[in-house]
């Protein structure tokens, strides 16, 4: 996984193109398709949104991420994949199984279904990103505001619910 060219297709291609387009002649919310690809599965998982690959209305051209880009960022991508596999209790409610999926089965033939699931989260995340950042924007000023509002929302919904300082403690516990 994360060593072959990846293409967004159909409506997702269109959305990714828009997310990476310059909104004020100078600035883009996402600099590369890869940046969308890296954030989208997290957003998709947080918002529990999945989506299937589609062909759109047939007019949208696929937009690609080159293999070298994926290989260069393979560690970060694998990290996200493992996070999702570890946490997705819908996929399996057994922790052992989830640990297997995250670590043992990663990049193996057994992971085929999990990779599909992962891509569904990627595409669902693209949908969410598009809705949150692009859809309601009327002018250049709105994009940045949407970005901020979106982050504030995530902060409220998730980051505020945990004690971030706890992470270091948990790390020590988890390394045992």
């Amino acid at each position, binding site marked *: 996984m994360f060593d072959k060219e990846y293409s967004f297709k159909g409506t997702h291609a269109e959305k990714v193109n828009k997310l990476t387009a310059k909104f004020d002649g100078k600035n883009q919310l996402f600099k590369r398709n890869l940046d969308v690809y890296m954030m989208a599965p997290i957003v998709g998982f947080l918002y529990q949104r999945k989506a299937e690959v589609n062909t759109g209305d047939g007019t949208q051209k696929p937009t690609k991420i080159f293999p070298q880009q994926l290989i260069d960022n393979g560690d970060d991508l694998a990290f996200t994949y493992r996070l999702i596999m570890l946490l997705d209790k819908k996929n399996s409610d057994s*922790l052992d199984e989830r*640990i297997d999926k995250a670590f043992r089965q990663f990049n193996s033939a057994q992971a085929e279904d999990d990779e599909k699931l992962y891509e569904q989260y990627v595409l669902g995340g693209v949908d969410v990103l598009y809705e949150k950042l692009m859809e309601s924007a009327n002018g250049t000023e709105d994009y940045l*505001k949407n*970005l901020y509002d979106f982050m504030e929302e995530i902060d409220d919904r998730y980051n505020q619910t945990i004690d971030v300082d706890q992470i270091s403690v948990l*790390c020590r516990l988890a390394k045992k």
Partner: protein
Amino acid sequence: MLLKSMSLTNFRQFNGTQSVNFSVDPEKNVTVIMGENGSGKTTLAQAFTWCLYGDTDFDDQVVLNKVVAQNIGPNGEASVQVKIAMVHLGVDYIMTREQKYTTDSTGNLKRPNNTVFKIQYKNKDGQQDFVKESEVDLRMKEILPKELAKYFFFDGERIGNMSKEIRKGKSKEFADAVKSLLGLSAFTEALDHLGGKSSNTVIKSYEKDYSSKSDSKIAQLRDEIARYDSRLDQIEKRFAEIDNEEDIANEKAKEYEIKIAENRDSEKYAQERAKLKNKITSLEQSKVSSTAGVIDTFNRKGASWMATKMIHDALKELADADKIDTGIPDIHARTIQFLINRKKCLCGAPIEFGGPAYTELNKVLDYIPPKSIGTLIGQFVRECELKSKGAADAFDDISNKFSVVSEFDADYAELSNQIETIDKKLEGMLNVGELQKKYTFYNGEVKKLRLERNRLSEEKGAIETKRERCETSINELVLQDENNKRIARFKAYATYMYKYLFSVYKEKESEVREQLEKTVNSIFKEIYNGGFSLKLDEKYNVQIQVDDFDGYVGDVETSTAQSISVIFAFIAGVIKMARENNSDENSMLMTEAYPLVMDAPLSAFDKTRIKTVCEALPKVAEQVIIFIKDTDGEIAEENMGSKVGMRYLFDKKNEFETELIGR
């Protein structure tokens, strides 16, 4: 002179014949005529000048009432008449001016006939008599010259100009009028007759009489004197021009000085604007960099930051599942493989292929080296720690930068507003540099003119000396001729008389001027109570001076109310003095008291001042006739109360018809 009555027939708004009797009661010497604007106050005031001098200030020279003109019909006629009854130097007069208007066959007005002016008077026997037609204008001039009339029949609109004229002494006419009113004109005329500027004076005529035939030397000297005189004349004319030019240049310089002062702030504003524009630029730059910063942080750290909760939860799961990689200490996969291959456990129990022991042992393989996922998990946990630490400040960072961006609009609007305000202020302002140039130019002109005047003064002095020498030589030569000797004697008498009269005149004149200054000041102080006094110079220029004010004594800027007060004080002063002279029978100065007829601009004053003006005027003038707006009128009547002898009201029927009704 006292005005007894006036009657108007078809004069402008006054349709038919309408009369006003003016109060001649010495105790109640005020006549108030009230009316709203446009009802005919100015017309009535103008009726005086039309009757006495035949002209008006109206643009429309047709004085015939419009309604009457409409109703004449074809080939008809109508006339306008104004009749004024007055007493002057104890004689009763009736002045009548009439103008006939005729229409053509279509009923249109033809060019009006010339006006006819008649003066009727009661002679010593009590008989009515007419002044000869050829002498009416002359007689009118004796009673009240037109130049003087405007100081007694004046309207508010002209008062601003009059005040200017008086203050600058620009109008010689004014000084002459004052002198004439104060009885000094007899002196000036006598002086002019003896030795004035004209070539027909007594003294000059003697000079011409010298017989120069006998002596060519005298003729030569006379020519020389004539040359000198003409040059002196030129110099005098140039002096007058220089005075005038200097006044203009001074005025301009002052004007620019004021403008410079008014616009000095423009530089300050321009600097302020530049500062604000810099602020806007840096604000725009910080918006750009903050926007880029928000996006950069979002791209670099956004994903990790969003994953914080997931990282936390994942770590928690891993921490809870502590059995995961505990495995069996010091057991390697090779050990298990060995046991499976020998089909017998360490404890001796058999390991059958596919049996429960076999399955269990295969599971163990996953948890012990080399297939252990412990390494992977350890690495994963380290990544968790790194990512969560690295992204911890992402939201704060973005918040800070975003607040710069979101406050931009408000800050930008505030700065733009400030700039706009300054722009507006600057809009009406002028470039100080340009103004300064003009100011310097006019100041330079003033200097040039002063230099020229000095040069001319020197030349004048030199010429006068030369001329005197010529005179002396002539006088010496003249005495050798009998006839010329006689003429020289006459001339000497005339010159002596001129000099004597001139010294008396000077003395009288300065006395009169001082007296006038005192009188005017006492009235001015009564009307305008505020630390100012008036000063009259030799040319009857009026200057307003600040009293008792440390460090500054000089002419000050005048407000409208002040200007009007000056005029009132001045005219009232002149009238009062004329009246006092009149009562002094032994005076060398013979004058007549005059009424004050005015279209009063009381609205320029505040209430207290109206009160003081109203109290002062009836005291100083023998007769006051005042045309006034309703609102002002009530205040005026309230304040003059006991002094009002007659009251009238303009009843405006429409634009073309007004009726005068007594109240």
